[in-house]
């Protein structure tokens, strides 16, 4: 059957099945430049405006720019090294490779309990943003005055989720076409926003603008903003490894992250920071009409709504694919329409609490780092130090009991313990729900200590437990097959 005539379900099934397979040299299609454009397209999304606006809550312009740059450069570099390097080297997608770290059931638990829950939250936030943007358009064009937490916002949010589901069931081709329109459009919108901001104000006024709702402790405000930007960078963890397997070299897999997820995302965040400071609101859906006037503002809001559907579809597609690939036979038996519908349903419920979800975006962002910072540390120490960058590719696909990466009944207790203690470390440093921080947080943040504790615990527990018991194929000298042999 020709790909163009395949049904969406068949395309998805093929992608889920073939996506697990290692790619050969001929199938690696992305050069350094190609992957840079992929990264830039991912980075310039509406959530960058949200994070820029969030930074303005705590910091003025210059300190805000510093926090954005510092948080993102650290987390994007560590996340890229952890996820992109192994996937690029072996041409294997991230969740198959994670079997060498957590075991089959351990990886499944991570996908179901961390990735799926976090992405459900992201979809809800983007749907509410869609609802607020559309409601502002309605208010402007019809003279109504629906509030940001009104029922109409939730109902339009549900419509956004239904549209996303309809695009999802049409399969990967429709998603590709949406992305080709949205990424360049958002790039243009970012530049236009910057021009409009500086046509109404100047650098001196922007740098003199006060943050929106700071705690008042300069160091605490700065570190909280750094922490949110660390979380923003780490939040790419579920996505990048599976993309990087298509790059031709490890350099082409890692450095483009600095151009896209760091540089391009920081640019969009900084524009969001300026807009929030000059307009006195951290909500991007409030900025557009004051910035661009009625006509341009309405066009911008409609485009934000459209862009959010694209992001919701992209998030849902990659997460449902990961669920499909790791979920076992029961999940594989579900029809694609049912699986995507089940995934989107909780988000559709959450949009009925727009104030609690959207206005507490910062709490959600902090919670994501509770998981992704330790996961990054564990993956880094496992691949670079414990395995000396050598994986037995054949063993990744060996599901027989007692196979090299089966650990203890398909769970690696060392990695699970490390993840738990890393998460506890984060919560000890700063409570994500209340932002109550201890004194160490003022110097070290929460994500970085959580990453180091998780890495250290994983290293010690692996040496003490797995190596001693001969579990997990950590004796890299014994790996004679696969890529390791011909390195």
């Amino acid at each position, binding site marked *: 059957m020709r790909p163009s005539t395949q049904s969406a379900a068949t395309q998805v099934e093929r992608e889920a099945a*073939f996506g697990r*397979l290692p790619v050969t040299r001929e199938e690696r299609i992305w050069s350094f430049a190609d992957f840079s454009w992929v990264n830039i397209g991912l980075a310039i999304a509406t959530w960058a405006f949200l994070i820029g606006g969030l930074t303005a809550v705590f910091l003025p312009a210059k300190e805000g720019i*510093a926090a954005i740059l510092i948080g993102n450069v650290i987390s994007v*570099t560590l996340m890229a090294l952890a996820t992109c390097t192994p996937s690029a080297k072996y041409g294997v997608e991230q969740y198959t490779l994670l079997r060498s770290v957590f075991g089959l059931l351990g990886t499944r638990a991570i996908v179901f309990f961390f990735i799926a829950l976090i992405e459900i939250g992201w979809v809800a936030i983007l749907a509410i943003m869609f609802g607020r943007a559309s409601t502002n358009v309605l208010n402007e064009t019809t003279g109504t005055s629906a509030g940001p937490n009104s029922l109409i916002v939730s109902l339009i949010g549900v419509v956004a989720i239904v549209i996303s589901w309809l695009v999802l069931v049409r399969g990967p081709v429709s998603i590709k076409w949406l992305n080709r329109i949205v990424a360049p459009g958002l790039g243009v919108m970012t530049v236009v926003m910057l021009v409009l901001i500086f046509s109404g104000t100047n650098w001196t006024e922007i740098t003199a603008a006060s943050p929106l709702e700071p705690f008042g402790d300069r160091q605490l405000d700065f570190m909280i903003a750094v922490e949110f930007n660390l979380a923003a960078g780490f939040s790419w963890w579920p996505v990048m490894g599976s993309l990087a397997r298509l790059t031709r*070299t490890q*350099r082409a897999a*890692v450095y483009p992250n600095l151009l896209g997820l760091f540089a391009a995302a920081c640019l969009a965040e900084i524009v969001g920071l300026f807009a929030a400071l000059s307009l006195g609101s951290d909500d991007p859906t409030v900025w557009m009409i004051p910035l661009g006037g009625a006509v341009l503002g309405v066009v911008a809001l409609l485009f934000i709504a459209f862009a959010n559907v694209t992001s919701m579809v992209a998030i849902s597609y990659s997460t449902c694919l990961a669920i499909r690939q790791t979920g076992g036979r029961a999940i594989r038996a579900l029809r694609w329409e049912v699986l995507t519908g089940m995934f989107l349903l909780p988000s559709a419920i959450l949009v009925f609490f727009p104030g609690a979800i959207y206005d507490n975006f910062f709490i959600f962002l902090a919670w994501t780092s509770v998981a992704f910072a330790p996961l990054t540390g564990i993956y880094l120490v496992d691949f670079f130090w414990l395995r000396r960058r050598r994986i037995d590719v054949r063993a990744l696909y060996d599901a027989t009991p007692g196979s090299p990466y089966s650990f203890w009944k398909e769970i690696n207790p060392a990695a699970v313990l490390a993840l738990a203690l890393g998460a506890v470390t984060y919560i000890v440093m700063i409570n994500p729900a209340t932002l109550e921080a201890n004194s160490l947080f003022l110097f070290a943040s929460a994500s970085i200590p959580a990453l180091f504790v998780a890495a250290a615990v994983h290293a010690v527990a692996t040496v003490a437990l797995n190596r001693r018991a001969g579990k997990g194929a950590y004796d890299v000298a014994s790996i004679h097959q*696969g890529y390791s042999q011909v*390195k």
Partner: protein
Amino acid sequence: MKPGSDDYIDDELERRLRAIEQSDTDDPARRDLSAGDMVALTAIVLAVVLLSLLWGFSG
């Protein structure tokens, strides 16, 4: 054998693993990042952090 069936995927996996395991396979992706790359990445991070702190808190 039907493309997409379990047997087809298993055969395709085996074909790819064999191709990967051939000792004459030369894939540039297998060349690890060098110590120079690690130094460069560390230098980029440190430079951005230090310059941002100095500029962000100046004046």
